[in-house]
């Protein structure tokens, strides 16, 4: 097997603004792909429209930058038509959750084996600064000078609501964390949603400041790992426990709490209730969850399609066009 390096997947000179989170993510994607080891020519990267959707131009793979919102639908067709190709779908929060929301949820529901990357900067960058479906209520932008009067989507809720089997989150500047979740997403058979928290330096600078640098993440993020207790904090002094219908942050060593009392993460649990609670955590009361939050295997759509074709081939007596014709009522004219 050929060993690939990040360079094998690299192409061109990115045109994003200096400091844009997309640069960091792209570097991690190249690195992750090299480590995953699928050849560039068996990889397809498909995006929609927006700043982040320029990404396929910097991939030395098969690639298509399509039209606004349709990346998930086009990626779906590509994967179903040729399941041997590893397909990455790249969208921003506008492309994936606004204009493309319908395709996004249905690709997840069908469980197409796509790696669905959602670069979430909570803003429309390419059209120069309008609020997006992930902008918080009250957000002031060029199209909401007095603040928005609508609530945002939480990508995780959409994913889970669409019966998603894989959800992970990373921060664009966190190369290690990003590479880890990308590899996990690729390893997962089915629709793998990865929310990438990404900063727009021009129109929404600082939106993820809370967790955007290492120090911030040490204080305000929790790296979840299947089978490991949900512990976080600069000195790993905090943990999560279940209380009533919710989660609660506790300090280890206080009130008789020991590590043994801390909830152990189960990404493979079919029931997504606690996984959703993890995914929805936000400051200041809770840490932001990073890593693979849900990872449950289920049959993929394209495999089921191929299996059904094979099954019916075995059952039906006709296998080419001439034979198909003869399944009809016909008569002879002499």
């Amino acid at each position, binding site marked *: 097997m050929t060993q690939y390096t990040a360079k094998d997947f690299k192409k061109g000179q990115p045109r994003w603004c200096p400091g844009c989170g997309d640069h960091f993510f792209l570097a991690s994607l190249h690195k992750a792909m090299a480590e995953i080891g699928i050849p560039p020519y068996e990889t*397809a990267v498909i995006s929609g429209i927006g700043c982040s959707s320029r990404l396929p131009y910097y991939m030395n793979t098969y690639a298509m930058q399509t039209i606004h919102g349709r990346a998930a639908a086009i990626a779906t*067709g590509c994967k179903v*038509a040729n399941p041997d190709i590893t397909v990455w779908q790249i969208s921003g929060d506008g492309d994936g959750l606004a204009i493309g929301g*319908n395709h996004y949820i249905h690709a997840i529901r069908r469980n197409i084996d796509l790696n669905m990357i959602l670069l979430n900067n909570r803003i429309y960058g390419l059209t120069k600064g309008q609020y997006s479906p992930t902008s918080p209520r009250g957000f002031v932008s060029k199209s909401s000078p007095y603040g928005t009067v609508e609530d945002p989507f939480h990508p995780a809720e959409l994913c889970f609501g669409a019966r998603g089997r894989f959800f992970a989150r990373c921060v664009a500047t966190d190369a290690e964390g990003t590479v880890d979740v990308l590899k996990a997403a690729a390893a997962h058979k089915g629709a793998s949603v990865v929310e990438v928290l990404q900063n727009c330096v021009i129109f929404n600078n600082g939106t993820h400041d809370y967790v955007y640098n290492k120090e911030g993440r040490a204080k305000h993020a929790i790296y979840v790992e299947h089978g490991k207790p949900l512990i976080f904090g600069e000195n790993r002094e905090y943990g999560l426990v279940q209380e009533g219908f919710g989660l609660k942050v506790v300090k280890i060593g206080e009130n008789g709490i020991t590590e043994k009392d801390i909830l152990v993460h189960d990404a493979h649990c079919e029931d997504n209730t606690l996984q959703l609670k993890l995914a929805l955590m936000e400051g200041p009361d809770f840490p932001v969850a990073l890593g693979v939050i849900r990872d449950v295997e289920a049959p993929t759509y394209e495999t089921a399609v191929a299996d059904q074709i094979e099954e019916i081939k075995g059952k039906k007596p006709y296998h080419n066009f001439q034979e198909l014709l003869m399944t009809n009522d016909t008569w002879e004219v002499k």
Partner: protein
Amino acid sequence: MAENMEVKELDEVVVRFSGDSGDGMQLAGNIFSNVSATVGNDICTFPDYPADIRAPQGSLTGVSGFQVHVGADKVFTPGDLCDVLVAMNPAALKTQYKFAKKTACIIIDTDCFKQADLDKAEFKTNDPIAEMGIKQDVIAAPISQMVKDCLADSGMDNKSMLKCRNMFAVGLVCWLFGRDLHAAETFLREKFAKKPAVAESNIKVLHAGYDYGHNTHSSVNHTYRIESHAKTPGRYMDISGNKATAYGFIAAAEKAGLKLFLGSYPITPATDVLHELSKHKSLGVTTMQCEDEISGCASSIGAAFAGALAVTSTSGPGICLKSEAMNLAVITELPLVVLDVQRGGPSTGLPTKSEQTDLLQALFGRNGESPMPVIAATSPTNCFDAAYAACKMALEHMTPVVLMTDAFIANGSAAWRLPNLDEYPEIRPPYVTPEMKEGYAPYHRNPDTGVRYWARPGQEGFTHILGGLEKDSDTGAISTDPENHNLMCRLRAEKVAKIPVPDVNVLGRADDADLLIVGFGGTYGHLYTAMDEMNKAGHKVALAHFSYINPLPKNTAEVLRRYKKVVVAEQNMGQFAAYLRMKVDGFVPYQFNQVKGQPFVVSELVAAFEEILNK
């Protein structure tokens, strides 16, 4: 009862079955056409059904009709008016009587002509025959009661028994035309293969209807016989346009050695193509019922990128939704067939009715310079050849192609001589070859055809990016260079313009016509019949009927200029005429336009064309 029965030999006959939407008239018509085709008659059918999910029972809006034209020789239309009208309830009689000839025989179920039924159909008196001034023979039979008597021992409930009424009507019509019931029995046993009791009940009622006619001779003084004249020898089947279209896609995929992928969203009247293709998984056909029309087209583009023969099927409103994605296929130069089974518009319009009003949308309904080939099928059976041609064109010229049919030919059916795939032309997509690896770029073209080469994911050495942004003609990189954009617009247009299409044939009095009729797509049968009748009446008329709309046949201008008078007849407000005027300098035709959602009426065409001849 008529004492002396006479058997009338006819060259052709038109039967119209009509009743409430729930009366099974479509099935009745299907069975009769099938029976007729089996004995070697030519057939042409026209289902005419309401758009309502279920209009109130017995109401005027809930009437469903199915017209069958049976001929000893070739028949090209379902016929203007019928020789036999079956009206299962008063609403059917009231709304369908206008389709009956003055000499027609009318069959009614008297059990469904009670006061309540008459009220629903808004009759003012209790004698609908007199109220409507009907002078024709009427076979007034207590069909419902006879059906119930016939099935009394079956153990079926009242409602289930009455569901078989339609078979009584079929039996009666079969007697009228001296049809053997064997083919109908076979049809029913296959249709109800999983419910043999239902099949046998229907067959019993079918025979009861036949016997009723035979025993009573009804109230007609003659029955009919339609001989079968020589047709091209071969094996035949009855096929609808939608089924023929689906078969065309399957045949093209097999010929090209590619997987067939259909991305679609249900929409009347195109859904049957999705249904048909979904059945044939044993041929490796992949169908996806997508979340919306956009995804139907977008997933197909993804499949084309991956290397499949990609098709998306829809009707006019779906084309509106797909148009942005269709443009992506234009600029990425990926093969894609977009099927538009036209219906009445604008907006939701008349979903179950037929028009040719999407022509300009197909040609021009997209942003930017967006050249796209357009092919229009001319009859139910021609849908097969048109679908095959559309696939071949898309694959060999790396372009989206719009295949236009319409509700009339899509739902209508005709006898079809089974094709031999060996006789169809090869399909050879312009795949990349290993020696192209060096310096490959996606928009390098064959210098003769202007077609780019097709590299598919999985092929080493050909990784590339396609996309909706304009690309450099050489490197394939994003380019906003004005000269490059100008060049790319021209290259895309030239590629389409260079696609070879067959010349348009001039039919009829090609050498000395005083009037040339011009049409396109699904009106062929009516226009041909109008021309034929006029020529038989001593006029000199010719027909140029177009299937290839973009690019137009090379002889188009020459043909249009050859005749003194030209009339463009189409089921829209003049879209094809406008297009031809744009393409042929100085061309000013007469126009015949109807937008009624119904097929042309041959007698109306003849009258209009005669008026033009007299000008």
